[in-house]
C-alpha cells in the first residue's frame, strides 16, 4: 500500500514537470510565444471561413455557422494534436526510457494534458466569438464538460495505442497521417451534416469524434445541430460511439500496459 502511494506520488510529480516543460518549450524562441496558441486556430478559421462560408456558402442554412465552424476546428485540432503527438511520444523519449524506470503512461498523459491546456485557451476564443455572434446561451452548456471528458478519454486512448504500436511498427506515423487526412473530411467539421446524403450522415455519426463535435455544437451553439440522436431518431444510438470509446480505452490501456515493460529494450 505504501509502495502504491509512493509510485502514485512519483507519477504526479513527473506528470506536472513534463507538462510544464512541454509548455515552456512549445513556443521557445518564437517572437509571439504563447500567443500562437490562439493565433494558429484563428488563422485556420479565417481561411476556412473565407472558403466555405463566403465563397462556397456552406452554412447559410445554419445560424451562427462561423462559430459552429470554429468550434469544430478547435475540437478537431485537439484530437489531432493528442494523437499525432502520441505516435512519437514514447519513441521520442527513448533516451530517457533507457536510463530510468518510470511509469511510461506519464509521457502520453503529459502530452494530452498539455494539449488540453491549449484546448482550454482555444475554447476561450470560441466563447468570445459566441458573444460577438450573439449566441443564446442554453442550459445544455452544462452538458459540455461531459462531452469534453469523452473527447479527452478517446484521444488519450488512441494516443496510448499509437505510441505503443509505433515502438514496433515505424510505419504508423505515415499511416496515421493519411488516416487523419481522410478522417478530417469524414467528420462534419467544415460542412454541415445536413449538406450530405442522410445515409452517409448516419454512417459518419457513428464515429466518436463526429458524435462529440456535434454534441458540443448542440450544447454550446445551436439546438438546430443534428446529433446522433436526431439523425437516427433514437437517443439510445448515442451509446454506440460511447461504447466504442469505452471499449477502445480499455483495450488501449491494456495493450499499452502490456507492452510498456519492453519499451526500453525495443526502441
Amino acid at each position, binding site marked *: 500500500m505504501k509502495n502504491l502511494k509512493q509510485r502514485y506520488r512519483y507519477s504526479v*510529480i513527473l506528470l506536472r*514537470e513534463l507538462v510544464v516543460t512541454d509548455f515552456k518549450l512549445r513556443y*521557445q524562441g518564437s517572437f509571439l510565444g504563447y500567443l500562437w496558441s490562439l493565433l494558429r486556430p484563428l488563422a485556420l478559421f479565417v481561411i476556412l471561413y473565407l472558403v466555405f462560408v463566403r465563397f462556397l456558402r456552406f452554412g447559410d442554412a445554419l445560424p451562427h455557422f462561423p462559430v459552429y465552424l470554429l468550434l469544430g476546428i478547435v475540437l478537431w485540432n485537439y484530437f489531432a494534436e493528442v494523437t499525432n503527438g502520441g505516435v512519437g511520444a514514447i519513441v521520442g523519449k527513448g533516451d*530517457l*526510457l533507457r536510463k*530510468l*524506470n518510470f511509469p511510461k503512461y506519464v509521457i502520453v498523459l503529459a502530452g494530452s494534458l498539455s494539449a488540453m491546456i491549449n484546448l482550454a485557451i482555444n475554447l476561450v476564443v470560441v466563447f468570445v466569438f459566441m458573444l460577438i455572434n450573439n449566441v443564446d446561451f442554453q442550459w445544455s452548456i452544462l452538458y459540455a464538460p461531459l462531452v469534453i471528458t469523452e473527447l479527452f478519454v478517446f484521444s488519450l486512448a488512441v494516443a496510448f495505442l499509437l505510441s505503443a504500436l509505433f515502438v514496433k511498427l515505424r510505419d504508423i506515423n505515415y499511416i496515421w497521417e493519411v488516416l487523419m487526412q481522410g478522417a478530417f473530411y469524414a467528420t462534419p467539421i467544415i460542412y454541415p451534416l445536413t449538406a450530405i446524403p442522410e445515409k452517409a450522415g448516419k454512417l459518419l455519426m457513428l464515429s466518436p469524434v463526429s458524435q462529440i463535435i456535434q454534441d458540443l455544437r448542440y450544447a454550446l451553439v445551436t439546438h438546430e445541430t443534428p446529433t446522433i440522436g436526431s439523425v437516427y431518431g433514437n437517443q439510445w444510438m448515442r451509446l454506440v460511439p460511447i461504447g466504442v470509446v469505452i471499449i477502445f480505452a480499455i483495450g488501449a490501456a491494456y495493450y499499452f500496459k502490456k507492452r510498456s515493460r519492453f519499451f526500453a529494450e525495443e526502441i
Partner: protein
Amino acid sequence: MSEEAIKVSGVYKDFILPHEKKDSVKRIFTSLFKQKDGGAEVQHALHDISFSVKKGEFFGIVGRNGSGKSTLLKMLAGIYQPTKGRVDVDGKLVPFIELGVGFNPELTGRENVYLNGALLGFSRKEITERYDDIVKFAELERFMDQKLKNYSSGMQVRLAFSVAIKAEADILLVDEVLAVGDASFQRKCFEYFRLLKKNKKTVVFVTHDMNAVREYCDRAMLIEKSKIVSIDKPSRIATQYTRLFNPSRNGEKKEQKKSRWGNEDIQFENVSVTPSQLHLNEEKIVIKVDAVAVAPVENPVFGFSIQNRDGNIVTGTNSQIKQLMIPQMKAGDRVTVTWKLDNVFNDDLYSVGLAATLDDGATVCDWWEEAAEFEVVNEERVPYVINPPVDLQVTGVKVEDQRN
C-alpha cells in the same frame, strides 16, 4: 524487513536481434506469406545470474566491455525485464546510470534542476528546499538563469551531480560515473562515496577502475561472457579481472612471440619466481633464470624489470649497474642468474621482464617481456606504487590498536 537489499535469482536475459528488423508493415505482410522470415539471432546477454546484496553493502560489478554488466544494472533498475528468473529489490532505488537524465539544452539551469529532480522523485517543494545547496555545491550561482546549451560540459556535469547526490535513496546503482569529469570533480565523487559508505547506504557499483573497487567495495563480482565468474573480496576480484587482460604464459606461445625478440645469441629458459604469490609476511622474492649462449658473446649484461598492472615499471636493475662483469661466454655456456629482492610491493599483479644485451648498449640478444608473473596479496593496500613494510606508531594520547 529482510537483510537483503537486492536479490537476483536465476536471471537470464536474451535479446532477440532480427537480421532484418521487422519494423515495417511491408515486412509483416511479406512474413505472412513466407513461413520463416530471415531468422532472428538470440543474444544471450545474461546467463543464470544469482547473487544478493546485503543492506549497507558496497557491491562492485566488474567485467570487460560487453560482458553483460550494464545489462544487469539496467535489470536491477527495472529498465529491462528478465527473460527468466527474478529480481527483488527492497527499498527506494535510484539509478545513477547517467548523470543529468532528462536535461534539456533549451531550458535554463534552474529549470533543469527541477526537471531532473522530478525524474529522481522530488516534488517542486522539495527541490526548492534544496535548491540553494545544489547551486552552491555545483559552484554555478551566476549561471542558473542561463540556458543549459550555453554551459560547458564540465558545468553540466557539475550541475547534474549536485542534483543527483541529493537523491535520498536506500539503494544506489552507479555506472561508471567516475569516468567523466576532471580531477577535482572525481575527488568530489570519491568524497560522496565515502559519505555513502559512512551512511550505510547500499551501493551497486559498476566500474573498470580496480583502485576504486579495492578502496570502496565490500564485495565484488566478476562477470565474463554473460556469466558470473566469481564473487569474492575486492582485491581477489581485481586480480582476476586483471588476469583477463594478461593471460598467463602457460600455453600462450604466440603471446610470447610478440613480447620477445633479439638476435638469439643468448636465450633465457627456466624462468621462475618464488613464491609466485606473496603475502604480507613473506619478505623476499626470488627471480631465477637460466641463460644459454647459443653463439659466443663478449660482455653480456643481464637485466630484469618489474611491471605492475597499470604498465608502470616499478623497479629493475642489471648486471652492469651492479658492476658484475662477464667477460665472455662460449657457445653452449650456461649461467644461472638470480635476483633476490625485498617485498616492497603493493597489492597487485606484476610481470617480470628479462633482458640479455651486450654492453655496447645496442645489441639485444634476448628481450623478453612478461616472462613471468607474480601476485602480491596485501590487505593493507595503499594507493601508491610501492608499499614497503612500515612501522607506524602514534604516541601521546590513548590510541586503540585495531589490528588483530
